[in-house]
């Protein structure tokens, strides 16, 4: 039997980009992630990670396969969820990267392209300004650096727990109870990133 039983960690594969790094980091921290495109496995998992590199349009796969619904209902039951990069953007109502593809709508608003700065994508290590009382960001120093690579971003929200500046402020991390997302790549952000993933695994 594979890890779809209790205590399981599902890493959602929606055929976009490369999941190797995320899986490797989770394994390094002692977790046993199951990479899956099966909504039943996602629905039964006790934690769900939605990684993401690539184009917002790829998230269409989630709706087509019933994964959007599986994630929605599991988060409603209180299952911890972590969206990474495009995975965070997908939690919103949509992105101007793909107007005809709806996001999950778990969070209000749309992600938009960086408009006021010449170099896009935003690539590299940028600092995090951390808001207090975040379970996800616990133990991460104010001003710690994280690795970003993206062209679209979410504006600041009530639930934003980390803020980054690039041609204006945007949401680097968000946390609404059990629903969490990071715009940067914790699996590529050195010690700070591993701390964040460990915090999520502890939930």
């Amino acid at each position, binding site marked *: 039997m594979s890890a779809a039983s209790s205590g399981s960690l599902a890493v959602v594969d929606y055929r976009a980009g490369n999941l190797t*790094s995320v899986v490797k*980091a989770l394994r390094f921290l002692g977790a046993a992630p199951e990479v899956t495109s099966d909504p039943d496995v996602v629905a039964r998992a006790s934690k769900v990670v939605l990684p993401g590199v690539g184009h917002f349009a790829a998230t269409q796969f989630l709706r087509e396969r019933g994964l959007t619904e599986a994630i929605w209902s599991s988060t409603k039951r209180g299952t911890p969820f972590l969206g990474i990069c495009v995975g965070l953007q997908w939690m919103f109502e949509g992105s101007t990267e793909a107007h005809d593809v709806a996001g999950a709508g778990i969070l209000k608003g749309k992600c938009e392209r960086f408009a006021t700065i010449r170099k896009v994508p935003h690539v590299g290590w940028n600092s995090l300004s951390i808001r207090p009382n975040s379970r996800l960001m616990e133990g991460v120093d104010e001003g710690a650096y994280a690795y970003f690579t993206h062209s679209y971003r979410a504006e600041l929200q009530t639930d934003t727990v980390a803020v980054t500046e690039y041609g204006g402020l945007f949401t680097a991390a968000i946390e609404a109870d059990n629903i969490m997302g990071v715009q940067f790549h914790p699996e590529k952000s050195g010690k700070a990133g591993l701390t964040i993933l460990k915090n999520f695994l502890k939930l």
Partner: protein
Amino acid sequence: MLTKRIIACLDVKDGRVVKGIQFVDLIDAGDPAALAVAHAEGGADEIVLLDITATHEQRGTLMDTVKRTSRGLFIPFTVGGGIRTLDDASAVFDAGADKISVNSAAVACPELIDQIGRCFGAQAVIVAIDGRRGRETPDPVKDAEVFTAGGRKPTGLRVIEWAREAESRGAGEILLTSMDADGTRNGFDCELTASVSQAVAIPVIASGGAGNAAHFAEVFGDGKADAALAASIFHFGVSDARELKKELATLGIPVRLPC
């Protein structure tokens, strides 16, 4: 604030580091996995592994090297050398690379950039350009020419135009090596780097010519580079990326510190 990146580069042949940065205190200075982790701990912002064997027979060795190297690495990891097809790229990603770098193969078949970008995202594709200033021209920077095959083969392409095409095909970054500056330790070609950085909206990584910390400050300032490849500088008095970044910070360059 977005910081300027210091990227450690390892040249690998038959699974061993043959050039690039080597720490004297490592027992096995030629093992790419050990060196990559040492550089990450030494404050490097990214690791690039260039396979200079790049023969078909050695691909298995490379995959094994990439797998071993990526295992303990939690910063961005780029692999280049001998990636000629989408399948080559897929295998390298599967082995644990976050980005791939293409050079000669992209010049021979520019569609390769589109293909890899579509499958793995633009952020995963670095187009490496070896450029040499134009000869017998009033504007040697504008007329700088792209060379392939490790700098042996002139292509007739202008560096700036090729960089623009790479961007339009979906490259996520440009790795620009100045053939004139490479190996001199007299500093980067800041003019060439700036001309490319201003011509495209994607990040430009400068390479070739570093001899001291001031050279990095110059290429991040005048050269408008977003990142720079550090290789031989670590042989000449600077022990690791952290030390280099501390010097850069005193020169007013935003860098990731502590790291």
